[in-house]
């Protein structure tokens, strides 16, 4: 099936099977930042943005991308770089497998311009598992990034 979609600002026509998920479609098309952490929609690693909202690409049927805007972390290099500086400063980067997904959620949050407190931020990010960091350093970095970008 043909799907008309926009990926990171570029219009693309994808040829997909009816039961194919965006995770596989995107990887096939070399958006390799989108990775699989589980098979059960449980980890957040595969998060992408559909029309600026985070969704798990491992459960998002590719046919559904018709007319939608898809963003992967390759599409927000400046923001990712900025966030990585904060991660670097707090020592929040370890294996990094969870990072692109987190970067996208945080970017979506920033873009939505919702007010966040430390507590709501935590709840907003709960779906992103990280087995390496213990989370606290990530949160510190993200708070600083959001604070920074508010200026």
């Amino acid at each position, binding site marked *: *099936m043909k799907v008309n979609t926009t990926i990171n600002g570029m219009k693309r026509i994808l040829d997909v099977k*009816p*039961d194919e*998920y965006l995770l596989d479609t995107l990887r096939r098309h070399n958006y390799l930042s989108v990775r699989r952490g589980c098979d*059960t*929609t*449980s980890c*957040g690693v595969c*998060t992408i943005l*559909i029309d600026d*909202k*985070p*969704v*798990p690409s*491992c*459960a*998002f*049927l590719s*046919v*559904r991308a018709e007319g939608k805007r898809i963003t992967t972390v390759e599409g927000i290099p400046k923001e990712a770089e900025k966030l990585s500086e904060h991660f670097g400063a707090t020592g929040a980067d370890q294996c990094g497998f969870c990072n692109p997904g987190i970067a996208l*959620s945080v970017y979506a949050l920033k873009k939505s311009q919702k007010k966040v407190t430390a507590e709501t931020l935590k*709840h*907003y*990010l*709960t*779906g*992103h*598992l990280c087995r390496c960091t213990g989370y606290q350093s990530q949160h510190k970095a993200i708070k600083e990034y959001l604070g920074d970008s508010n200026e």
Partner: protein
Amino acid sequence: MKISNYHKANSLQDAYEVLTESRNHAIIAGGGWLKLSSRTVEKAVDLSDLPLDYVNETENAVEIGSMTPLQKIVESESVKSLCKGMLTQAVAQIMGVSLRNLVTIGGSVVGKFGFSDVLTPLLAMEAKLVFYKQGEITLTEFMAQRGRTDDVLEKIVLPKTKGTGYFKKVAKTPLDFSILNLAVAVSDGHYKIVVGSRPSVATLCEEAMDYVNGKKTLSDDDVEKAATLVCENVKFGQNPRASEEYRKELAYVYTKRGLKEVRDCES
């Protein structure tokens, strides 16, 4: 899950017709749960083009379209205003934001999942369902229907009440299914008590409700008696998440806490 063909419905009628062509056709809402199942679907009927993604307020009710993603419900002020935000709280405790952007309230209701954190508050709030074919029925009636439905859910209707509510989810982590969940709602002095994830599907605790609703005022002793009635009359079971006994203990404690909280809130 395997899908052989895919059909984007252009109207509820179209959806209904294609769905009922074969037992191997299925509505696909968020697709979140279907993905985890081993079902083979000959034709998936996608509702995502239909205008079913909304939360609207009417004079007497809040209406939620069946394709509304859970995150939208979390963020809805209308929903928050009902029963002290009981549904908001319950839905906000389901997984993370990205999954909630995907999965829908319709899928959550029609799936009739044992673990559901949605059915529990909806039952307590006396939700009604509007199906394409059956029209409006109560959620309680729907729960009593056996087998997989071959109707299309259009929306969920939540009556506006001045009542208050209490919801509790007990789970190992915020990303786990409930060990047990429990809702208590009261409106005009009329109490509803619902227990879910027992681990079987949510149910009204009729005996306890009858007892409580027979009282003019609720004393602490009445509350304890009601909690005991929940434990005695509701069927609990065991699974790897918890034993039957532990579920009973939880139901007892949280019925008590829930009843006290809404009672004190009402007065």
